[in-house]
């Protein structure tokens, strides 16, 4: 699933827990699900940050080579 989809999922879980009267087990289950999804999101973001760093390094190299 895409990052945007997962974030929307977490938001909808939070809204559900806040607005609905749920059994405690259900709340715990939803909470656990939201936490797991947010972990995945953070892992994905971390990976994207790494890619961006690599791309920036390539761009810098391109600019330096050009001036050479």
């Amino acid at each position, binding site marked *: 699933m895409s990052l945007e989809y997962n*974030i929307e999922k*977490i938001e909808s879980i939070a809204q559900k827990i806040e607005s609905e009267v749920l059994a*405690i*087990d259900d709340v715990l289950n939803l*909470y656990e699900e939201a936490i797991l999804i947010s972990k995945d999101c953070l892992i994905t973001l971390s990976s994207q940050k790494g890619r961006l760093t690599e791309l920036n390094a390539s761009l810098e190299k391109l600019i330096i080579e050009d001036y050479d």
Partner: protein
Amino acid sequence: MLEKEYLTVSELNSYLYGIIENDALLWDLVVKGEISGLSIHKENLYCTLKDENSQISICGFKLKQKYLPKEGDSVLISGRISYYIKTGKLSFIATEIELCGSGKQFDKFQELKARLTKEGLFDITHKILPPAFPQNIVVITSKEGAVIKDIYKTIHKNNKQIAVSVYNVSVQGISSVKEIVEALSFLDKQNFDVIILARGGGSAEDLSAFNSEEVVRAIYAAKTFVISAIGHEVDFTLSDAVSDLRCLTPTAAGEYIVSQYNNSINRIFSSLQTIEKKVNMTIESTKNLAINCLKKISLIAQFKISSEEKNIYNLRKTLSLINPQNLFNKGYFKIKKGDVNICSVQDVCVNDILNVYGNKGSFSAKVIDKD
């Protein structure tokens, strides 16, 4: 073998001199003809006197007369024949010159010029444009003369890529007109880039073939670019007027060919340099545009990642606030009867065994009493 009897040149010339000097008929003559190739220096006059079939050199020393002859004048010249032993040259020494009307030759020339002008043969609109790359040249001239050597040397000194051929003709004399016309007609079909019609300097008679109607029309009819380079700078013939370009001398014709070729090469190189410069500028500006775009994209990506990170951390904060564990930490318990969650007192009865879950563990309890 018997040796032939012979005279030396000096003996022959002396003999001729004797005949001429001793012939009284030749001491005092009046000759009629047309002035041509006139040259006057102080009181001395030099020219050629001619008629339709013949000519003779005229010298006049310290002539004192009111009438000064002009080119083409028909005149009566009084004087005597002279033979110069050293050079073997015969000339007429003039003592007096008088006018007897305009020469026929001159009149004929003027009439021809007017007629051809009226026909439009000399119009500038008829001139062919020069070829950009004259690589294959033919020169119509005498192969014995210095002209072809001058042209060849001038061209090849500067550019060995240009091929120069020569088509031999008589440039003066009885057969010259026919030969020149045939040469022009033939060479016009041979895919040369340029035809140069050239000869060195000479008298008006020497250059007469280039004033003939036949040669003028042959040049006019040619589809190949024709350069005329006839005589010296002061000589201007009808061939010069009708050709596509007149060069003052044969050497100038060679120089023109080289400059035309070199100018075209230079124009091409200049255009190529302009194109190269433009292409490099375009590449440079496109590259800079791409780099700037990439930098912008990088900034946007960084911002988006940061933004999503913040969003997720905020959501986690929100989730932690609604974490059910917080209720346990506040002293709330979850009660179950078997697998069923107890949400109300009405769900329990006295003596029920209940499972109680709270912070850090759970226990069992029995209902003793209820309200």
